[in-house]
């Protein structure tokens, strides 16, 4: 099933995560290949965000290994880790923009940290990233509290793109957006994916978004992950997966995509 000729960007093997006596992940395996949009779905409390935090190294898993670009995240020296961090971008569920900085300053923050640049170039790069995510240049001068929900998601994406990563992690990128903004965000993702050749890992509950953008989807059920193409998952007999992809909302989303 897996194409062995291309090394996966992300390889998670035998991941275990527990909180107290509650086991969230047990021997979870996951592979994300070069240049795909990989969706992660699962019921509430199945540990989607925990999985993301484990991959990013924000949480030490209780077992298993996480490899990014073939390198074990845990065993990296701090210098290598810093270069690894620069190779991916992340957006968090609520944007996590620094509230005391303007949007432009938020975008410039990682650039300032890693490069010494003139103010002019910093402004140029901030404008580039704003333009990439479809925000007006004026939005750069605003503070996060002055933005609408959709703009916050875009601004967070602009910050995630600032270091020109090849890998993007998006946590619920379309949650809380109206259908039009959410659809626009899907298009933006597809656009950036094709133009910048990004690999995208996306946690989402948005079925429209899932059908529109994802080439493969990983479902977390029974503490494991089942990864397949959407068509494969539609045929999957597992009861949770079946009801997820054949519920009333899923059918509507599916109909829209496949006509």
């Amino acid at each position, binding site marked *: 099933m897996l194409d062995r000729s291309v090394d996966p960007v992300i390889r998670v093997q035998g991941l275990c995560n527990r909180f107290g006596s509650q086991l969230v992940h047990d021997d979870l395996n996951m592979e994300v290949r070069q240049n795909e949009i990989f969706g992660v779905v699962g019921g509430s409390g199945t540990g989607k965000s925990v999985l993301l935090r484990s991959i990013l190294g924000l949480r030490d898993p209780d077992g298993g290994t996480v490899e990014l670009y073939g390198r074990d995240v845990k065993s990296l020296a701090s210098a290598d880790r810093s270069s690894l961090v620069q190779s991916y971008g992340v957006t968090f569920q609520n944007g996590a923009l620094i509230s005391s900085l303007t949007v432009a300053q938020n975008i410039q923050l990682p650039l300032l940290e890693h490069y010494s640049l003139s103010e002019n170039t910093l402004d140029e790069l901030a*404008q580039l990233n704003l333009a990439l995510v479809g925000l*007006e240049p004026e939005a750069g001068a605003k503070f996060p509290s002055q933005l609408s929900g959709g703009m916050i998601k875009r601004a967070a994406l602009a910050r995630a793109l600032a270091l*020109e990563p090849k890998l993007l992690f998006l946590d619920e990128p379309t949650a809380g957006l109206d259908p039009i903004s959410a659809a626009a965000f899907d298009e933006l993702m597809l656009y950036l994916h094709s133009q910048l050749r990004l690999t995208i890992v996306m946690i989402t509950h948005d079925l429209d978004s899932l059908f529109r953008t994802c080439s493969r989807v990983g479902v977390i059920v029974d503490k494991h992950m089942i990864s397949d193409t959407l068509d494969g998952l539609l045929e999957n007999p597992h009861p949770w997966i079946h009801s997820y992809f054949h519920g009333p909302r899923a059918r509507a989303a599916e109909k829209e995509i496949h006509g």
Partner: protein
Amino acid sequence: MTASLALEPEGSGWRLQLRGDWSLAAIAQIEAQLKGLPATLHGSMLCDWSQAEAPGIGPAWVLLRQLADIDPQPPVLLHTGGPPDFLQLLQKLQPVRRAPDRMHAPPRTLRGLIGKLGRWSVLQGRHARGVLDFLGRIASVIGQAFSRPRGWRVSSLARHVYETGITAIPIVSLIAFLISVIVAYLGAQQLARFGADIFVVDLVTIAVLREMGVLLTAIILAGRSGSAFAAEIGVMQLNEETDALRAMGMNPIEMLVVPRVLALIIVLPLLTVIADAMGLAGGGLLSLINLHIPLPQFTTRLRESLGPTTFWAGLIKAPVFAALIGIVGTYRGMQVRDSARELGRLTTVAVVQSIFMVILADALFAVLFVQIGF
């Protein structure tokens, strides 16, 4: 290989040869190289990407912006040598170019100064109105609570009495004890020179009961609880929790502010009594060890030095200090808007201002007590 840039004449125009590392990692060098480009050029322009390694989108953007600034615009601008795919995307985004609006500081003239003063006055006026409004709301909630017992929020009140009062007993006791020992020790050094050792008792009694017991307790609570009030309510503001309360028909002043202020008003006098006792104990202990004044003699002397109002002159200030600390802390918390930095700033303001208010009030009390012979 480091990034470089060569401008060579070719035919009737120019060829811009890009070489070396053109990824974002080399952006600082690329920036320096681009500065070398002349601002005025005539003729067409050909950008050759064939020798640029791993071109990044940021550097490409900066280059395009620079080329767009060339005066007059080259009639033909072409990219060859396998330009990166995203170049088309960038060219599409180009038209949004606009000079960044920089904030200009108003000139330092007399008019500017008067304007500044005016803005400051208006701000202060608004601020004073805000405080007045806040006090009014508290008063109205307390007034309503007399006819509506649920308005007292007893369980919330109890929690705050515990958190601001009971858990503060150890630190208040320790500090009152230590300060009083220090005062007695230094006082004894001076008084011993006149052979007036016994007056150490008077010194400790009056200093602790009239001033230090209540003042120290108030300052500890301002640092301990005033900051907690501001931070707790401030985070609730940031999370829109106070708006949620309002939307559910609950009054945040009644739910959050009044229980905290009342708890402090209840707790501070009680803590002051404890601080007084610990202070006297400290004085007594030092007198015993350092001056060899036995305990019965200490207590006799203590009673003699005690005026009818000495104890009350200290205690009567406690509820006033408590109200000041509680109101300043909660008011600053309710002011938090928008950002984490505001939260930090207003928490600092809450502590600094409540300590200042307490000391100012103490000074006024001192003058008042002298005037009325209390």
